[in-house]
């Protein structure tokens, strides 16, 4: 700022202050509208134009980047699968007190039977099995096994109904009993080849009051047959689940007042069910799989009943849910804390070595002639033009026990042939390779900051009596800190989420948390846990960014 403008500014301020004193209240424009408002109006077009210019990128980023990430992060707490697949069970299980040591009551088993039957028909039970298997091993096979032998319970009633009247094993009488006559007429008129959609199943009036369970299960059946198989419920015999439901309805309700279709068949059954052989659902489920009488099975299902869970996050920090609240896992099962710590430690090491190696180079770059600097800069950027995989593999060749460096050391006699150094598939290898790969991200911001520091500062410091070191440390270095900050943030954030290099050269001790996330995404398919780990990683980075802002100040970061 020159003195002229410095002199002008206070005068200007004084003038406007005087004006404000004349006219209290908000400033107005020539037509008496508030000045702010007319300023906004005049700038609106400009803002709109700016928005239009960035709109394509904004939409692209929103759709392809932000939205999927948000969805992924949401998965870390999402747990709807349990209550969606087992709605009755989870509802009834809510009141169960796991700490008493008693198994849930019959109503829960009843719900489980209904839920599981429908889920098995819809082939959803294995998905739930694998979900719960993350929390308790054996769940996956329990659900798969149960899906197969669940018919055993219903068959008890099915056989007895069929023995009573073979019509109970026919499709049409069931449809007439439960379906709306109009719907049956439409259904019969419907031509499969016409291309029109099938008329959606509708229950007969009053039937869901009379036979609530039967109506509900038959609806589920009809819906499934229509939507999944594309068949007509008029031609399909219902599931044995419906027979079970009918048995329960007839035992509980009085159907003597019913006079709709198939009333005779229903009333005959009503008269007979009293003498039917029956089985409790609890016993039935025990017959399906003994694990259903295991207390921990129910604990797990109850713990993961809510639609949202902190289970993934607890898992991601080596904890688990117990009936008594969250608790640490056993020492030998803890893995993520170690991985997070290792990731942080190694990222810091990589950032540190990048500073140590990059600072002198950046200094050199900014202090040689432009032509030489450009040549050196090309050498710095050269790795960018080489495939990441090639560079990482090259390090594998260099560092392995029969590799170039070991060979040279043996040849020089510095190490014995039988005690070659282990430099790959461990932390050392990962740090070396990643330092090399991320070095340009340190050098470039450093260089761009150092370029703006005029050499006169060093001269001035020396003329004031500072030695070379003092001049550097007290005058040059503080001014290059923004470059170090920018480079460190870049390198640290890049390395904390790095995947390929640790995967290739990391072995078992040099892998990062990102490798574990990738494993859960692509191998174990535990996306919820992967999302939780990713969320923690993101929070960690944001936290560090915040801390950096508080300590150094983000204004001090210069990226170019």
């Amino acid at each position: 700022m020159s003195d002229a403008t410095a002199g002008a500014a206070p005068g200007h301020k004084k003038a406007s202050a005087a004006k404000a004193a004349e006219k209290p209240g908000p400033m107005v424009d020539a037509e008496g509208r508030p000045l702010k408002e007319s300023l906004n109006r005049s700038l609106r077009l400009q803002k709109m134009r700016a928005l239009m210019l960035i709109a394509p990128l904004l939409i692209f980023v929103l759709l392809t980047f932000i939205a999927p990430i948000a969805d992924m992060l949401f998965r870390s707490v999402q747990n709807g699968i349990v209550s969606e697949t087992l709605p009755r069970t989870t509802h009834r299980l809510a009141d169960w007190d796991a700490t008493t040591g008693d198994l849930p009551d019959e109503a829960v088993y009843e719900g489980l039977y209904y839920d599981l039957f429908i889920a098995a028909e819809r082939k959803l039970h294995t998905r739930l099995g694998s979900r719960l298997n993350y929390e308790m091993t054996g769940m996956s096979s329990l659900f798969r096994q149960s899906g197969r032998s669940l018919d055993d319970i219903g068959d008890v009633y099915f056989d007895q109904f069929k023995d009573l009247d073979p019509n109970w094993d026919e499709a049409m009488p069931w449809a007439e009993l439960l379906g709306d006559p109009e719907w049956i007429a439409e259904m019969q008129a419907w031509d499969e080849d016409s291309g029109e959609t099938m008329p959606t199943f509708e229950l007969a009036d009053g039937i869901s009051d009379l036979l609530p369970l039967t109506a509900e299960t038959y609806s589920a059946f009809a819906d499934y047959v229509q939507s999944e198989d594309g068949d007509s419920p008029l031609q399909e015999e219902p599931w044995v689940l419906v027979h079970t439901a009918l048995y329960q309805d007839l035992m509980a309700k009085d159907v003597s007042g019913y006079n709709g279709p198939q009333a005779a068949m229903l009333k005959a059954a009503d008269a007979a069910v009293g003498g039917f052989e029956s089985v409790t659902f609890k016993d039935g489920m025990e017959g399906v799989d003994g694990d259903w009488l295991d207390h921990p099975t129910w604990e797990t299902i109850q713990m993961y009943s809510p639609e949202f869970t902190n289970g993934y996050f607890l898992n991601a920090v080596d904890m688990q849910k117990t009936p008594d609240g969250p608790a640490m896992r056993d020492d030998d099962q803890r893995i993520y804390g170690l991985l997070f710590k290792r990731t942080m430690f190694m990222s810091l090491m990589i950032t540190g070595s990048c500073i140590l190696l990059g600072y002198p180079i950046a200094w050199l770059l900014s202090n040689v002639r432009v032509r030489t600097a450009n040549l050196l800069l090309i050498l710095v950027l050269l790795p960018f033009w080489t495939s990441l995989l090639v560079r990482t593999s090259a390090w594998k060749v260099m560092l392995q026990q029969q590799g170039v460096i070991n060979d040279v050391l043996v040849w020089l006699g510095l190490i014995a042939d039988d005690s070659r150094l282990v430099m790959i598939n461990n932390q050392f290898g990962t740090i070396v390779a990643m330092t090399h790969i991320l070095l340009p991200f340190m050098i470039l911001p450093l260089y761009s900051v150092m370029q703006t520091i005029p050499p006169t500062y060093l001269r001035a410091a020396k003329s004031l009596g500072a030695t070379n070191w003092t001049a550097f440390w007290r005058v040059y270095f503080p001014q290059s800190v923004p470059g170090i900050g920018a480079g460190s943030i870049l390198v640290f954030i890049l390395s904390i989420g790095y995947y390929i290099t640790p995967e290739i050269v990391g072995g078992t001790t040099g892998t990062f948390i990102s490798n574990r996330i990738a494993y859960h995404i692509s191998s174990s398919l535990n996306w919820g846990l992967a999302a939780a780990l990713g969320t923690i990683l993101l929070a960690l980075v944001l936290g560090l960014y915040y801390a950096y802002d508080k300590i150094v100040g983000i204004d001090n970061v210069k990226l170019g």
Partner: protein
Amino acid sequence: MTDMAKQDAFVAFERVQKSYDGETLVVKDLNLSMPKGEFLTMLGPSGSGKTTCLMMLAGFETATHGAIKLDGVSINDISPHKRGIGMVFQNYALFPHMTVAENLSFPLEVRKMGKSDREAKIKRALDMVQMGNFAGRRPTQLSGGQQQRIALARALVFEPELVLMDEPLGALDKQLRETLQFEITRLAHDLGITVVYVTHDQTEALTMSDRVAVFDDGRIQQLAPPDELYEKPQNSFVAQFIGENNALDGTVQEVRGNRCTVRLESGDVIDALPVNVSKPGDKTRVSIRPERVEFNPELGPDAHTLEAEVLEFVYMGDVFRTRLRVAGRDDFVVKTRNRADQVRLRPGEKVKIGWLPEDCRALDAT
């Protein structure tokens, strides 16, 4: 220069040469000695070697040949931070990450001075440049003029005996420059420090300095006090570089003691003072200051006058500036004081001009 004077010299350049590329000399055989307390300005066009000389004195450039002495001791091999020379840079070079007080404290800290001493000195230095209230500010919060005052205070705070200034006022506007010129000279005299000041602004050089060294082509063309430099330039370059000057080319016709006659290229003959000419036939360029020319002069009976035609008359307030066609050139300028009886010429008028022979210096032909 006598041996005595050389021994007394506080700053001395002895046969100093400097080359950057090993092919051309930027500084050619520089000899210069300054007594203590002198304010010496190195003046010259850019590329004349003046800044290089300053940098060699500060220690940021090494002399290719010759010795630079400070207080009789050669400082060629002493690194800059041990020379104890204060320096003010053109772009101020205030450390942006330090406050004003920290900037001033820096030279004292590296000298391991105690805290209370430092504070006292900083306060005194800031008061000296009337910036006492700005100790806590950052350089970026100051205007250019304020920054330069701080830079000055920083160069003086550790009480160096020699202060170098490299075009310190170059980036400031005219009014501020004049104020600071005055302040710098006042401070230099009050503190009794020796100052080497580099500038390409001749007004600055003339108003501030005890002596001015005019640089051109790697050499000192003339080293003299301002009045001598202006009134008695030793060669055509200095005459042309310092102040406004009328130059006429011609050949020496006759030399008689401290008078000579010169025949101009137009055939006119004029009287002059022989400075760089010795015998008839020498090519010369004569130099006459615009304010020493008289219209219709009443000189001696044998004095020569020239015919001139008025081309332009400019009213400049305190003076009139008249441009004339003289001896075939139309860039001849005459300045006359604005007096009540002063004649105001109109373009197209014919007039006779003349001057005292001692005001017309016959210099080297370039």
